[in-house]
């Protein structure tokens, strides 16, 4: 119990530290009024605007106000839209979540059986081909994959749309783009853990006892390989939620990553901060859950 509590405190500390560091960093990037004030305002009007955003106060006061609000779950108001930053992100959260789930689904659908197949046929031609393809998968830049898919399926064949999220068809290209790297990752991971497990003593025993190969592979080996696999999927989920920037941008996806990218380009500090803090929180939460699960499965972890 104490272990979980300590891990939980560490998680909160990490999120707080991230929020503080980003806040401080944003102070270093110059006077926001250069961007906030439209070109045709007088100096006096600019000062008035500065006051309205609370930017006339000293930095430590701004920081305290920010932290106080953060504790209440208030992440500030977007400079460009005047809406609460968290609400803006929340509006776009579902679109990102759906895309990420689709991508993970595709990745599991291909990566898992692929990895098993490669492991069972270790060092065969199939294995080598799959292994090579998976290295290609982790070597291709995501943005380029996205553009190639558009070039083939939208421009040349005209089968699939390349912008927006109006129908199920719109999910295909961005989903595949995002899943590409993960298919390769999952495949490699499943293959190597399966190989590890298949060389363990108990599997050898099972084989020696004359159990059918299918049972050995699926019942013993795969089941054991699934625990680290689920962990990996969990971590990839965290990564994708905050890492779909490129894909959302290329496919004009109405998700929160594109919102964050826009906020970066317009220097909408409250939205940037909110996005980073939210990402850190998602990450920390995923890590925490993984730790807890491991702790439950393997009590030794708690004392390590």
């Amino acid at each position, binding site marked *: 119990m104490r272990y979980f509590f300590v891990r939980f405190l560490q998680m909160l500390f990490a999120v707080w530290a991230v929020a503080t560091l980003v806040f401080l960093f944003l102070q270093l990037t110059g006077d926001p009024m250069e961007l906030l004030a439209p070109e045709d305002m007088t100096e006096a009007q600019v000062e008035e605007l500065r006051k309205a955003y609370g930017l006339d106060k000293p930095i430590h006061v701004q920081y305290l106000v920010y932290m106080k609000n953060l504790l209440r779950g208030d992440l500030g108001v977007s400079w460009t839209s005047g809406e609460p930053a968290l609400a803006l992100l929340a509006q776009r959260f579902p679109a990102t979540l759906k895309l990420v789930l689709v991508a993970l689904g595709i990745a599991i659908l291909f990566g898992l059986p692929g990895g098993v197949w490669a492991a069972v046929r270790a060092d065969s031609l199939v294995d080598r081909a799959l292994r090579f393809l998976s290295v290609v998968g982790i070597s291709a*830049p995501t943005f380029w994959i996205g553009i*190639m898919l558009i070039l083939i399926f939208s421009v040349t064949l005209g089968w699939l749309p390349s912008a927006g999220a109006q129908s199920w068809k719109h999910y295909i290209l961005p989903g595949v783009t995002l899943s590409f790297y993960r298919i390769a990752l999952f495949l490699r991971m499943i293959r190597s853990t399966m190989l590890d497990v298949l060389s363990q003593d108990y599997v050898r025993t099972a084989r020696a006892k004359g159990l059918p190969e299918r049972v050995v592979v699926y019942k013993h080996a795969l089941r054991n390989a699934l625990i680290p696999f689920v962990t990996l999927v969990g971590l990839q989920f965290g990564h994708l939620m905050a890492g779909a*920037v*490129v894909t959302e941008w290329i496919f004009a996806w109405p998700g929160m990553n594109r919102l964050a990218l826009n906020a*970066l380009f317009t*220097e909408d500090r409250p939205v940037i901060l909110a996005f*980073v803090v939210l990402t850190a929180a998602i990450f920390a939460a995923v890590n925490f859950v993984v730790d807890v699960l491991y702790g439950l499965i393997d009590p030794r972890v708690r004392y390590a």
Partner: protein
Amino acid sequence: MRRFPWLTALVLFALVLSAIFAPWIAPHPPLEGDLLRQHLPPAWLPGGDPRFPLGTDEQGRDILSNILYGLRVSLSVGFFAVLISVFIGVPLGLLAGYSRRFGEIVMRAVDVQLSIPTFLIALVVLALWGSGLLKLILVIGIVGWAEYARLVRGAVLAEREREYVLAAEALGVPTSRILFRHILPNVLSVVLVQVSVDVPRVILLEATLSFLGVGVSIETPSIGLMVKRGMDYLFSGVWWTTVLPGLALMLLVLTTNLLGDWTRDAFDPRRRLVRS
């Protein structure tokens, strides 16, 4: 043990050489353009010009030369950024492995660092601070320290339990000497494996950031930037400005990764155990 992948190494070597010697082998200065030769197709297609083997972009700049210079940028980012990460992360990890209290502090910092994806940190910092090759290398390099510190600390903790270290400690050998003379050489294989994973990752990171327009500045030849610019012409039949640079980059990352796989198999102590 796996055979050394000669073909892969040869291709990678050729790519690295042509990147290093780009100023001498590139047929044109990368930024020299002329609007009159805008969007020439590759030389083997009708309308192509043999002086521009892979065609030209919207400013009439030579694609091949830009790819060569772009690979040069990719490689320098991959090399120098990882070097910075190693130089920060390894000493911190060593110390953290040896001193319990310092180790705690370092691990908390590692936690904080790893609670946001590297990509996001680099994106935020570069978008707000402005882009540029040097800044990019610095940011990616500094952000990458945590993984090294963590791995090295773990390896040190494991090594410390070994007899030779215990013996040295009992003999009163100074801590710094034990760390650098005895432990460091033994954790180097861990670092090497991580470097082999990191270099291709960082190369892709540079390309992605440049593609989003926050990486290197617009006057630097970069694969990411080429693809970004090419995207505007995607629907007008000009495919060579996006497809070819991407292919070149993929070849570079692919060979680096394949060589990295071999390194991992050869140097990762755990893998060696499994295999034997």
